[in-house]
């Protein structure tokens, strides 16, 4: 299990615990935790509705792929540590990370 902190659109923070051995993505955990993440494309890095900003995290939680960077590029608002939650695997990299939701308010 890993524990990380999620900051919602109103700035409220909550610690989330997630299993790191089930091949889940951060997007899936956010949805399961009832955060307003649309994830229209279901996790293919094709819609950018699971946009998050990594406020604290080891190595930005891994490298973004070209597909992910292309999609982030289309967003009106982008931050230096923007990522798509669907492209972040739940792993020990996430332990202690702080993630801010940036998707539109749905």
């Amino acid at each position, binding site marked *: 299990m890993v524990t990380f902190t999620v900051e919602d659109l109103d700035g409220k923070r909550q610690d989330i615990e997630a299993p790191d051995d089930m091949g889940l993505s951060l997007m899936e955990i956010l949805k399961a935790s009832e955060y307003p993440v649309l994830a*229209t494309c279901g996790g293919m890095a094709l819609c950018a*509705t699971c946009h998050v900003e990594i406020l604290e995290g080891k190595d930005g939680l891994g490298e973004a792929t070209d597909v992910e960077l292309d999609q982030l590029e289309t967003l009106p*608002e982008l931050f230096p540590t923007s990522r798509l939650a669907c492209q972040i695997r739940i792993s020990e990299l996430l332990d202690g990370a702080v993630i801010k939701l940036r998707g539109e308010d749905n």
Partner: protein
Amino acid sequence: MINTDICIIGAGPVGLFAVFEAGLLKMRCHLVDALPQVGGQLSEIYPQKPIYDIPGYPEVKAQELVDNLMKQIAPFKPTFSLGERIDFLEKQKDGSFVLTTNDKTQIHAKVVVIAGGLGCFEPRKPVLENLEHFEGKGITYMVKDPETFRDKKVILAGGGDSALDWTIYLSNLAQRVTLVHRNETFRGAPDSAAKVFDLANQGKIDLILSANLKKLGGNGRLNSVILENKTKEEIIIDADYLIPLFGLSPKLGPIANWGLNIDKNAIEVDTTDYSTNVKGIYAIGDINTYENKLKLILCGFHEAALMAHSAFKYVYPDQKLSFKYTTVNGVNAF
């Protein structure tokens, strides 16, 4: 006024298959979709991605499934209003409905089926003060008629393919085109990016990189856009039009105002026939919700079949419905 038995809102896979199920029961369908093409998110977001859970297809590309559905429903001659969004729905005294689109197309239908997926795909908007105030008064999110921009000062914002393509296109038409992009490079098609850099080098367009939209200027109508560059300096540019191009995102939109029971952006339905709380309105596919709902295309297909058998009573109130297999009876087109 378009007259039909069933007006289907949303031309994604489930909306398309609903035409087939309705057609078997001799009910005609008119489909409306906010996107300019059929197929919903399959065509818009992932046309080349394989789908593995359609019964009978070990693997099928999203666009191929849409093309096949179009072939399958062709005998029932569905009609379409594409690139339009239903803004108003009015129930008539006789229980039928009149629907009006944002382009003022009117559709009279005995039954309404909402197969809207995650909602209408609408342009993502930049966060700017007074943005709504200038919408339609200088700010537009799509180029519907390029002639609008002839001899005008146009600012485009964005770094994707559509920003590049429209910059190139409008450079021949507008008085002055300025493309604003927050990065130094483009991730869009390399050919288009090269062309945009060429046009900038030749002085035919203004290319402002590493800059963001900051403020809008104008009294009633847009007349300038203020940008902020890397060093936080403000740049004021005169503009008749600003076209922000930041992709599309689904929104529930006007559906939320039709008196339907809605839970977390989804419409609550009765699982015996996928009817909503409003008599004559059904919701199928990803847009509905019920206990144990799975957002799968195949579940939407099932919902379409049950919906059609229930909707029959509104279209043919005096007839008795008899269930028939296509294998026995074939597909009897209109």
